[in-house]
């Protein structure tokens, strides 16, 4: 059984024309690093939060989300607490916003252990010191007494990671963990995350808009567009030969890391908002291959094509011939 599994998860918010998430399938095995890639507003963060039972207020849901065998959709408070305190933890985008600014770093690290885990203050602090060292912070005893505003963004994100590890989770959910940081710090944080993931055999779901980052740090990649998974493959396959026009568009709009620089080709148009809906493929309006009468009429299912799963009517015809 996979560690994290989404089966046909749909999330609908009142007053919106289309679901935030529409039939999401996604799996993360124990010890596996998986990326979920998409533009802002594609539903990646909602997907990740659903794994902790954090859904937007007023949302109606369909389908299943399980973490280590625990069903989260419609779960009672005890199940939610069990998952949140022992199975899965989340690392948030902006550590400055995610850590209470008026409490000490030590409080942030130990409160879950003391208040929910039933550990003594000394035990919790010993554990916190150990984790601060594990995420590569130079002076753990001092950091315990510091306030968040006394640390840099990169240091604070390490604190955030240490905080996520206090619960000894089997699954780490990382919601754009490096977006709020500068470039060199980004690389350091990703290195810390990957090392911890490998050392501890954690399952990892990395939410990012950066396809190259996803490919560099994860085994498999899911590409999300307008609340649907449109393509999934191993990182190498996806980068070498994207089969969904959207994936191809994402790759074409970022500069290649190696080889001669090429002219970037942005994807025309803007992502579909929550107040719009289309009877056919959500990407059809922006897709240069879209066939009238087909793509704008029926929504494609996620189906095998070229050794992976793709949700595109033309996966077997057009894109297999397009050479990037």
């Amino acid at each position, binding site marked *: 059984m996979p560690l994290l599994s989404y089966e046909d998860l749909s999330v609908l918010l009142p007053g919106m024309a289309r679901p935030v998430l529409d039939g999401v399938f996604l799996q993360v095995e124990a010890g596996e690093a998986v990326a979920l890639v998409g533009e802002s507003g594609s539903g990646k963060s909602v997907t990740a939060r659903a794994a902790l039972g954090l859904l937007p207020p007023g949302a109606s849901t369909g389908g299943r989300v399980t973490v280590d065998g625990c069903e989260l959709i419609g779960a009672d408070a005890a199940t939610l607490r069990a998952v949140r305190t022992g199975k899965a933890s989340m690392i948030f985008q902006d550590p400055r916003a995610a*850590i209470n600014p008026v409490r000490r770093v030590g409080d942030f690290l130990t409160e879950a252990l003391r208040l929910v885990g039933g550990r003594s203050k000394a035990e919790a602090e010993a554990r916190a010191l150990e984790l601060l060292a594990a995420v590569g912070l130079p002076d753990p005893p001092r950091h315990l007494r510091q306030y968040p505003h006394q640390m840099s963004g990169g240091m604070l994100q390490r604190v955030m990671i240490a905080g996520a590890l206090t619960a000894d989770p089997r699954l780490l959910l990382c919601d754009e963990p490096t977006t709020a940081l500068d470039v060199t710090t980004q690389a350091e944080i990703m290195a810390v995350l990957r090392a911890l993931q490998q050392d501890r055999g954690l399952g990892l779901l990395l939410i990012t808009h950066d396809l190259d980052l996803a490919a560099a740090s994860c085994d498999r990649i899911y590409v999300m567009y307008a609340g649907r998974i449109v393509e999934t493959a191993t990182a190498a396959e996806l980068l070498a030969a994207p089969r969904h026009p959207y994936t191809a568009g994402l790759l074409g709009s970022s500069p290649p890391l190696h080889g001669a620089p090429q002219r970037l080709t942005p994807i025309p148009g803007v992502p579909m908002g929550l107040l719009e809906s289309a009877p056919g493929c959500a990407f059809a309006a922006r897709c240069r291959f879209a066939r009238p009468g087909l793509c704008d009429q029926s929504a494609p299912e996620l189906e095998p094509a070229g050794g992976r799963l793709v949700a595109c009517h033309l996966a077997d015809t057009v894109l297999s011939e397009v050479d990037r």
Partner: protein
Amino acid sequence: MTSVMTAALRRLLGMAATLLVTSFLVFSSLYLAPGDPAAFLVRGRSPSPDELAAIRQQYGFNDPFPVRYWHWLDGVLHGDFGRSYLFHQSVGEVLWSRLPATLLLVGVSTLMIAVVGIGAGIVGALRRGTRTGSAVLLLVTVGAAVPSFVAAIVLRSVLGVKLGWFPTIGNGTGVLDRLHHVVLPAIALSVTFMALVTRVTRSAMLDELRREHVEVALSRGLPRGTVIRRHVLRNALGPITTVCGLLVSGMLVSTAIVETAFGMSGVGSLLVQCVDELDFQVVQAIVLLVVAAFVVVNTAVDLVYPLIDPRVRAAGGAR
């Protein structure tokens, strides 16, 4: 740590300077007030101009302004606020006899404001959008619009006269009787302030509830009650403390109305009486006392604030 001490010391010096300026303003404003204190002293008789001049001489009314201010300030610094013309006692004795009643009134009101105001604010924030939440908002709007003298009249006539649950006049004797007597005045005094504290608490809580770190705390499996207490209410304490500090001193002023309305003998009703009777020495002392309370409470809030929000500590050190 030394920067914290320096900042505290600076605040205390600032407080002393404020009090000094205040004392000057208080003294000079009464100097400008209409009415001749010498004329008051001889009220009921018709003195000859010579007798009047003698009285002026005796009480130092002829001295130049700075000299009179200096004498008064010197006395105040030694705890001597002068003599009350009205009571033929030292101002200190007059105040001292009236102070306990007022402190009891303000104390009970503060307690009510803290418990009911903050409590209702928390409920209003957590139950926003429900019937309970709307009820809190309605009560806040009504409460803020009720002046204390209106509240006093309504409370007296309904709970005091019609239902007879509470006495309507006087201070009472003995601990329980005093408390019984102070209930209605305390409610009348605190209604407006309570509404203000509720509103501030509610909006501060709502601000904090929206913060991402609250969602993060929930995502870590902390029970909702714990998150509300440790991360929402704790972070909302800053504005709540500030407004409570302002209110305590504001209440001292309002005691003038409430004590008069309930026929209580306290500093507030004393102020009204002495203004009426031109007993300048007492008025000066009371005004100075109220301003001092205001300054002291605000300084205390300033000093406590860095404990509530550590980010202020950093900013204070840099300034």
